[in-house]
């Protein structure tokens, strides 16, 4: 990172190449599967990295990068409440459709294959729980890394994860039973 701040283009290319995919995946899941929006947020996050002056060289880079990305996603949701409501409505509609007894086994299997049920279940989680679940189970962050990323105590990370995972299980359980 120090080399990047000194204008080293090779170091910068290596940094972007290493983090582009994981960061895109994180933001994609955080914003409910909007590819264009997540790509814009990735670009914005990396711009913040280049423009900021707060990075401390003795601290790990990854939690700091994801903190910026998370804050940008939060800002987006704050400034686009209408869209957030639309997304929430869309997710509920998806779930209702899936739980609808009229939906046949083939339709359910296809939806599962496309990940629509999981996407809808995650979209139903409150943002604070969705962030920790995505960081933990999709990005493979340790509890300590999540705490550093979100600037919250370790105990809070565990409690949010516990709530998030239980909510997720509740949201997916009816479908599981249906599929089984």
């Amino acid at each position, binding site marked *: 990172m120090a080399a*990047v*701040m*000194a*204008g*080293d*283009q090779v170091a*910068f*290319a290596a940094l*972007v*190449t290493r983090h*582009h*995919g*994981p960061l*895109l*995946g*994180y933001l*994609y*899941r955080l914003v409910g*599967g909007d*590819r264009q929006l997540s*790509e814009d947020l*990735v*670009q914005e996050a*990396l*711009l913040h990295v*280049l*423009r900021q002056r707060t990075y401390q060289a003795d601290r790990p880079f990854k939690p700091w990068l994801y903190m910026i990305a998370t804050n940008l996603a939060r800002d987006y949701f704050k400034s686009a409440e209408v869209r957030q409501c639309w997304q929430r409505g869309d997710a509920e509609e998806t779930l209702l459709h899936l739980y609808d007894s009229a939906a046949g086994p083939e339709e359910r299997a296809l939806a*599962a*294959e*496309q*990940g*629509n*049920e*999981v*996407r809808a279940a*995650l979209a139903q989680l409150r943002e604070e729980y969705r962030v920790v679940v995505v960081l*933990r*189970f*999709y*990005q*493979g962050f340790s*509890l300590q890394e999540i705490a550093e990323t979100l600037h919250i105590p370790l105990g809070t*990370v*565990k409690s949010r*994860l*516990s709530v998030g*995972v*239980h909510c*997720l*299980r509740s949201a*997916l*359980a009816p479908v*599981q039973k249906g599929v089984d």
Partner: protein
Amino acid sequence: MPHPQSSWPFERPEQLADLLREQGATPEERADLLPALRRLSEWQAPQPEPADTRRLLARLATELPAPSPVRQAIREHQQRTGIFWLLATARAQVSLFGPAFWLVSALVTLVGAVVVLSKVLPDQELVLRASGPLLAYLGTIVAFRGPGLRVLELELVCLPSPLQLALARLVIVLGYDVGLGLALSLALWASGTGQVLALTLAWLMPLLLVAGLALLLSLRLSVQAAASLAYGSWLAVLAIGTTSNLQTFLLAPALSVLPGCIGLALLVIALLRLQTGMHRLLPHP
């Protein structure tokens, strides 16, 4: 347009159970939660193609901080190795000396040679003893600039150490002065002047003495003051030696090499002390 999908980070099923255990879930909870967590892998995220990353890099490249000319120069310097590194360092150090230094030094030597060859003064060695150290005075002032010029901090962070820089500059200055001394010797020899060696030593040895003394004093005094004090002291010795009975002792031909030996010893001491006393040379707020 379909995109390649990201891989699920957990290769083994028990890894999910380990995560739940780590965050405090009981065995019953784990058994209850694991099926739901396993289903998370159903929702894959798109992975960027190399072309996507290249486009992103191109957009961000304009925001990359531009490296300063100093850092660019250091990076280019780092890429050189071995003899090329030495040549690059020497070239950079030579560039510190402006044309005035080379010309004035040559002019002083030329004037000394002309005065000696024209024999307008009875004591030819005295002219050379006085003019030779003048080159050391000039060289010290040009090569070892004071902290007031605000470049010392830059030199402290550059790749060659301050000691290497000091050595490189000494080699340049003294090498040039010795070269002028050889030219002077040739001129004296070509004109048929006797005692070429004695005259050359009378020119070169005091030069070394003043150079060593000036460098040593510059560790405590400003460069201007150190060079002036060293050259002034030598002129005082010359004046005392020529106007008093001490001439036979101070300027005896048998001792003509002594100032040079003392000068070399002082140079070595100064270089050794330069490393340890560098902090004192830093500009103070």
